[in-house]
């Protein structure tokens, strides 16, 4: 950094610093610990809740802790997790994406159609689905970063338009008569691990690396933290914000394809209400709807928690309506703890 002048040693200042460093070392350690804890506290809370739930369900149902069921939970988590990772990136920019369910359905349906009608392989279809998702993301991004629509409104429009498009394309009928190979992505396995779980792991690792180690990731947090500061710092805000929506859209497309592959069909009704599950997963994991905060690790825990709640409810024969109530309670608790933590931090400042 181009500060030219070297520090001038001032005897009184040095003495003061020496005294301070003796008493300061312990404070600094405590300070450091507090910082690390505070960023991990929601993840820690969510992980604890997950473990408690896991143990409770293992005791409550003999079917919970079986290889088959764990495999099932894994691939169930996969779809929510992939899309929740996308949602997390957007939430960090202080945005929100309500269109993920519709876009996932669109991508899944298009992926199924190109296999059925054009004879694409499942992998080619996956590439198409990712492209469909990225295109929807591009439209969202241009509406938000270019036309300056609030993210809530822009993606609300995409939610409706995307779902409409799904029904137009399919005539509101599911896309069936697909080859068995279509299931590879969602139900296949490598070395005993569900293929979908491996894909999720790759997506999560890649996204976590992108957010924490690259300049792009730094800008994602900067934009969500203070858009004006980011702009004044010379960051190309429009381009980067659009890129976030495109990337997130691509992941949503991938998630939609995994979901279609799991049920071996393209379902026009897929993903209604999915946006709530993935927003919940991100928020439970510590992402802040006020922007600037959120980590992939937390989102994964959140996605897993939601998948386990859903799975456990089925095993315990709790109706889908009660599941909704339970997820609602979890969201309230997560946000309450988040705000509690934030207030305590700010009270110090």
């Amino acid at each position, binding site marked *: *950094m*181009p*500060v*030219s*002048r*070297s*520090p001038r040693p*001032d005897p009184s200042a040095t003495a003061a610093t020496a005294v301070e460093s003796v008493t300061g070392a312990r404070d*600094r350690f405590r*300070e*450091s610990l507090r*910082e690390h804890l505070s960023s991990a506290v929601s993840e820690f809370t969510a992980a604890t809740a997950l473990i408690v739930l896991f143990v409770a369900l293992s005791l409550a149902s003999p079917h919970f802790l079986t290889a088959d069921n764990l495999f099932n939970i894994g691939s169930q988590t996969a779809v929510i997790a992939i899309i929740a990772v996308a949602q997390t990136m957007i939430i960090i920019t202080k945005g929100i994406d309500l269109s993920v369910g519709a876009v996932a359905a669109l991508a899944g349906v298009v992926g199924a159609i190109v296999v059925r009608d054009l004879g694409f392989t499942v992998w080619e279809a996956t590439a198409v689905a990712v492209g469909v998702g990225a295109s929807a993301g591009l439209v969202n991004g241009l509406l938000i970063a270019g036309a300056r629509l609030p993210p809530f409104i822009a993606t609300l429009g995409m939610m409706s338009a995307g779902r409409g498009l799904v029904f137009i394309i399919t005539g509101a009928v599911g896309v069936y008569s697909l080859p068995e190979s279509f299931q590879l992505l969602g139900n296949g396995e490598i070395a005993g691990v569900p293929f979908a779980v491996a894909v999720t792991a790759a997506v999560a690792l890649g996204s976590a690396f992108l957010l924490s*180690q*690259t*300049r*792009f990731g*730094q800008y994602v*947090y*900067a934009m*969500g*933290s*203070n858009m*004006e*500061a*980011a702009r*004044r*710092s*010379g*960051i190309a805000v429009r381009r980067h914000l659009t890129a976030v929506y495109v990337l997130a859209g691509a992941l949503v497309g991938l998630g939609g394809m995994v979901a279609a592959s799991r049920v071996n069909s393209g379902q026009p009704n897929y993903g209604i209400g999915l946006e709530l599950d993935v927003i919940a997963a991100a928020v439970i994991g510590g992402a802040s709807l006020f*922007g*600037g*905060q959120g980590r992939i690790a937390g989102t994964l825990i959140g996605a897993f928690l939601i998948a386990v709640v859903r799975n456990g409810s089925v095993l315990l024969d709790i109706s889908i309506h009660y599941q909704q109530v339970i997820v609602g309670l979890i969201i309230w608790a997560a946000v309450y703890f988040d705000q509690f933590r934030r207030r305590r*931090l*700010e009270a*110090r*400042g």
Partner: protein
Amino acid sequence: MSAGRGRTSRGPGRGDGAPPVLEARGIVKRFGHVEALRGADFAVHRGEVVALIGDNGAGKSTLIKVLSGAQPQDGGEILVDGRPQRFGSPLDARRAGVETVYQDLAVADDLSVAANLYLGREIRRRGLPGRLGLLDKRAMRRGAAAALEQLGVRVPRVTTPIAMLSGGQRQSVAVARAVVWATSVVILDEPTAALGVVQTARVLEVIERARDAGRSVVLVSHNMPQVLEVADRVEVMRLGRRTARFRAADVTTDDLVAAMTGALATEPEDAADLH
């Protein structure tokens, strides 16, 4: 904090024949029918702290926005080191070595101190990883720690998020960021308006260290005692023009108030008729 500052030993940089590092000549800026700047002049020389004062509506903020490239002028010219420059955007001003700290804090609360210092100018790793966008976080931490040390800014650690700092520490970081990147002039718009006594002293200390490091500082402030304490010179604006210039050592608060209200002027009246 003022011990050993020694303003008297250091001239304000005038009279050595060098052109001002940043100069505004006859700047005109209109907003519709309102003429906010009516041929405003301003100059700051290398290594001096110039306070820009004036009553509300005198045109200080508008002049600052023109000098920082945020709002291009309608008439007049800006000179950097005696050469005319066109500031069409804040980026142009920054390329010319002029950094501005705006009144509302321009820091990202969730990012660390180091990340804020390097925001928009991140250090990337060398070679292919760098071209792929990988950050060299260690280099940035080290650079930030060294820069803050030199400017006397104390923060718990450079990895601390800005949100966990006090108001004075935040503002000090914002000022330090501008000082570090400015190669010639740092413009501060009311940097201490929202701060307490101790915090204000900290920020003023950073300003003095910036001058000691060879930067010129333009300070917009309403606080007359503060202006006289930290500035080498004072330029007074009234009704969109510069009406008075003083050496800070030669004036009292009363003189400044008189100049702001129009009772005292050092600039020739006919300057107003130039346009």
